[in-house]
């Protein structure tokens, strides 16, 4: 009997999956619009630099009575305070920095405090028991939340050391990952924006979305490692969302900001064309129409309830395509693979009829 083959045979193939192209679209969407990274990433990186010394000190202190067993630090009462916890978390800190638990079925045992050097921020390692499940949780005080890892309780010294090393590695990986993935700007717990290491501010536009307090917005052009980022941040208190322009979707940074302001106000910013006599598209100021297709030439893209048309135009030195339907005008700049009006129509059809399921 070969257990590998038996397991292999026991697992089916499951239902059909989305296509790789659909996965790509989901990934692109995630890249474009992301929650602003908190200071957690930077803190995690800093913690690793001094982490070994901290752990060694902790073990020296905690193993006086039994070198093979980690001695539990004095175990204070852990209040029940579900309101203080993030959704889904069973333990956490309240506003006073005190460890709290979600309900009375959760038993919390302190393993160690100040396990990692987190730039003066509190961190606590706990053994948390719920039903027959026991795991270790490393809490640390910052906007990024907590790291959780399962592990048997009552660990021996070797296991404790190994677990701490594992957490350090994971935090370092998370920090490096966050630093790369979340772009060149982070927000600290006080809501203050900070550039990540190596990033340089090129331009700042305050409140381009004209938001009222306490909300605010800021547009940034930032360079890091030879790459230029266009960022639009929506901020509220100590958190926010960032939007990053996709590659070359707009000729200028200001045009991108204008487009976002218009969308925020529910109106199109870039119209470029309007319907004139006989339902023909006419270019607005500065716009030259190169070619257009009317309702009868759009086939399945035409809409019975509205007059539709598509135009290829030149504006600010670049080629654009505009889909006009009734009073809605949707311009998009030409890009590789979408350089002719036919390719643009194919793109529209693909968007409207996504072949999401593999045969």
């Amino acid at each position, binding site marked *: 009997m070969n257990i590998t083959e038996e397991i292999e045979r026991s697992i089916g193939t499951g239902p059909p999956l989305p296509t790789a192209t659909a996965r*790509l679209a989901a*990934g692109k969407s995630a890249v474009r619009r992301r929650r602003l990274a908190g200071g957690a990433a930077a803190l995690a990186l800093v913690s690793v630099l001094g982490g070994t010394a901290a752990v060694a000190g902790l073990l020296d202190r905690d193993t006086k009575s039994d070198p093979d067993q980690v001695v539990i630090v004095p175990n204070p009462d852990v209040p029940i305070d579900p309101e203080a916890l993030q959704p*889904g978390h069973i333990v956490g800190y309240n506003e006073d920095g005190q460890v709290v638990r979600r309900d009375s079925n959760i038993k919390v045992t302190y393993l160690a405090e100040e396990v990692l050097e987190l730039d003066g921020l509190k961190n606590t390692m706990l053994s948390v028991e719920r039903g027959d499940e026991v795991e270790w949780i490393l809490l640390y005080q910052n906007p990024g939340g907590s790291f959780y890892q399962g592990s048997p309780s009552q660990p021996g010294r070797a296991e404790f050391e190994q677990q701490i090393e594992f957490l350090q590695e994971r935090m370092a990986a998370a920090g490096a990952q966050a630093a790369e993935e979340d772009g060149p700007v982070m927000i600290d717990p006080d809501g203050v924006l900070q550039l990540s290491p190596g990033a340089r501010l090129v331009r700042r536009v305050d409140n381009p979305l004209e938001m009222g307090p306490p909300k605010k917005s800021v547009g940034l052009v930032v360079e890091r490692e030879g790459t230029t980022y266009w960022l639009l941040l929506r901020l509220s208190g100590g958190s926010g969302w960032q939007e990053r322009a996709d590659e070359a979707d707009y000729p200028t940074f200001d045009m991108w900001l204008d487009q976002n302001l218009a969308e925020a106000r529910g109106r199109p910013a870039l119209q470029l064309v309007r319907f004139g006599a006989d339902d023909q598209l006419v270019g607005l100021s500065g716009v030259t129409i190169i070619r257009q297709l009317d309702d009868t030439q759009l086939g399945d893209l035409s809409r019975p309830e509205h007059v539709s048309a598509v135009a290829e135009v030149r504006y600010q030195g670049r080629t654009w395509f505009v889909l006009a339907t009734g009073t809605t005008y949707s311009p998009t700049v030409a890009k590789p693979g979408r350089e002719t009006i036919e390719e643009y129509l194919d793109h529209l059809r693909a968007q409207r009829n996504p072949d*999401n399921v593999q045969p």
Partner: protein
Amino acid sequence: MIGRKRDDAAYVEFVASRQQHLFRVAYAVCGDWHQASDLLQTALTKLYVAWSRVHRDGREEAYVRQIIVRTNIDDSRRRKRRPETPGLDGFDLASHEELAVEERSALFEALQGLPPMQRKAVVLRHWLGLSVAETAGELGITEGTVKSHTSRGLEKLQAVLSNQ
């Protein structure tokens, strides 16, 4: 150029060639095709976000597998509520009839009946072929614990097989 240029073609090629296998890995870890679909979508989205670095290091599959396993570990902590994982627009897994008529083998049922960490240890060690050290790293437990988990898990699976 705005932003980091990603190699989209390489990402699409990887997903097309490996997502079926990774879907089965997710299913083996969690025992539910819906949840496996959520896990895989989460992992593949994170993969795209980190694509430049992960692809450069040539560890795409390990990265996705780690996200699947760790997300499942985190999710299992939040048993009271199902994670709100964004799916793909227009693709509803629940609409496929295959789920309604799904049949699972006795071995798979036994695998899913193992305690969560035992099940993951068995899947990683004895289906995916990871070493004890690699399995310990992915699960965040010691090598000794991996050995005890897999030993107990295999014992139960072999009992099921010998009764068939």
